[in-house]
């Protein structure tokens, strides 16, 4: 999907600079990563589950895939910013990590979003933790054409990164299920009205499976191309554990880590995706 120079991934210990609660179960992590090679929108890192300590911990065992929200490059390192939600054992330990502690970082990994087409209207639809996956895309394509960002969450407290998107200057609309922020309802309802406007547009989406599936259907019904960024459990992130298989409409599987996370929506067999 498009031609770009993909940065060569590194494996390094990053130092936690900041790890703070942002409301609800959401947190923002800033990690000082030496030798960071840069990244492209849609790529991710694997993070050790919780701080590395003097004794190597084996439980929980596996690193966690995390979208790269954005980075702040400096001389010889970058501050890598991650927005995440405390949902399970790994992210609970991550939330307890203190400034000065180390996390193992492997990345950047995965194929980026396809290169944007200048002048094209872009509709970015994201919900839940999927919001973190599209921020860099919004930053990259903003100014190339009309860019509209539609964010969804259950409640205002669950909503990630709204102020960051607003600061980009993109057209931003928000929906929450309880109406505590923005429009009451689902973000897909915002997409329906956006798609009702005439003219070409490309839809990009990341979020819970039912949301992405609905976005893909709406885009297809409206004759607009749609790119989905899939989230999945994975043990490695670089194509060897084969744990993150996503079923394809054409049969067989793609690996979310190696062949994605960005896919053409029509390539995915949604009914077979867990």
């Amino acid at each position, binding site marked *: 999907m498009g031609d770009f120079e993909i940065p*060569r*991934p*590194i*494996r390094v210990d990053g130092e936690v600079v900041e790890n703070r609660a942002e409301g609800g179960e959401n947190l923002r992590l800033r990690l000082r990563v030496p030798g960071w090679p840069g990244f492209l929108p849609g790529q991710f890192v694997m993070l*050790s589950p919780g701080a590395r300590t003097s004794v*190597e911990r*084996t*439980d*929980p*065992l*596996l*690193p966690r895939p995390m979208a790269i929200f954005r980075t702040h490059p400096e001389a010889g390192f970058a501050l890598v910013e991650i927005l995440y939600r405390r949902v399970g*054992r790994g992210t609970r330990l991550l939330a307890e990590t203190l400034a000065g502690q180390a996390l*193992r970082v*492997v990345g950047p990994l995965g194929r980026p979003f396809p290169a944007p087409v200048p002048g094209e209207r872009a509709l970015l639809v994201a919900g839940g933790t999927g919001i973190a996956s599209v921020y860099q895309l919004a930053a990259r394509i903003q100014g190339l054409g009309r860019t509209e960002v539609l964010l969804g969450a259950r409640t205002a407290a669950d909503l990630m990164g709204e102020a960051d998107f607003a600061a980009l200057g993109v057209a931003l609309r928000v929906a929450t299920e309880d109406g505590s922020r923005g429009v009451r309802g689902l973000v897909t309802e915002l997409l329906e009205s956006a798609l009702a406007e005439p003219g070409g547009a490309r839809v990009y989406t990341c979020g819970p499976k039912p949301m992405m599936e609905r976005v893909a259907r709406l885009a297809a019904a409206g004759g607009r191309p749609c790119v989905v960024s899939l989230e*999945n*459990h*994975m*043990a*490695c992130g*670089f*194509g*060897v*554990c*084969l*744990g*993150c*298989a*996503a*079923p394809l409409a054409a*049969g*067989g*599987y793609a690996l979310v880590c190696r062949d994605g996370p960005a896919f053409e929506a029509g390539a995915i067999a949604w009914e*077979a*995706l*867990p």
Partner: protein
Amino acid sequence: MSEPLDTRVDLGGIRLRNPVLTASGTFGYGNELAAFLDLSRIGGFVAKSLTLEPRAGNPPPRIAETPSGMLNAISLENVGVEAFIRDKLPALPEGVTVIASVFETEIERYAEVCKRLAGVPRVAGIEVNASCPHVKSGGIEFGQQPQVLAALVRATRRATPLPLLVKLSPNVTDIAAMARVCEGEGASGISLINAVQALDVDVETRRPVLSNLLGGLSGPAIRPIALRMVWQASRAVRIPVCGVGGIASAEDAVKFLLCGATAVQVGTANYLNPAVAGEIADGIAAYAARHGFRRVADLRGALELPSRLDP
């Protein structure tokens, strides 16, 4: 301290620059980890198991985390033996020792894959994965029945002149007996253990965590079981043993060498740290030097036993 340490080992005719291999199914076809690990730092790698035809594998969910380990049920997903020979092998850097792994659902097909690999440049040996369900035995693993295992080793031994390792299933009551079967049928060496058959469930959904219901447990959780089996197997046969199971550090690897392994394979730990196999190779050398060994090969079986247990 004047003589340099000799790190080389001979694994049933496969000459390795050091005793650290990576385990099949955890290292792809070799190049996937090249960004993180200089492959010349390790003894070699065992490639993802190959079948005659490309196979797609199981539906998701395929993996799940468990205490100090993980479950997987990937099944037979691989590119097939022809694509391995045509596309994967030529892409590898020079000087990397490659062991091809073979699994299939019938003995004749195992032998056919071995035949296709004969004479292929770059393939230093074959590892036969005996943990695959045997279709004709109703899905029981080849390595769980001595007579089926014997037939498998016999057929694959005849099919290739290459050094032949047999990777044993741990899901048996007498691993020493299985090791002797392999030796009796002419295997060059044995690798053990493969993943331990296991199950986990999600109580909220009341479903198994894997689509396949059962999976293979790997990671540090199985290491003491693997070490026990390597000890028992290596005392039962004269052919070399390659230790596999939860190895994540040089200290772990040395334990397997002391208990009788000639070499080791690093598996699940590659997922956490794709450079770990190189670190383990360096760490074994440092251990050997620190303990006054001139050859890493001399660590094999160097376990000090309490006198009442001495053979």
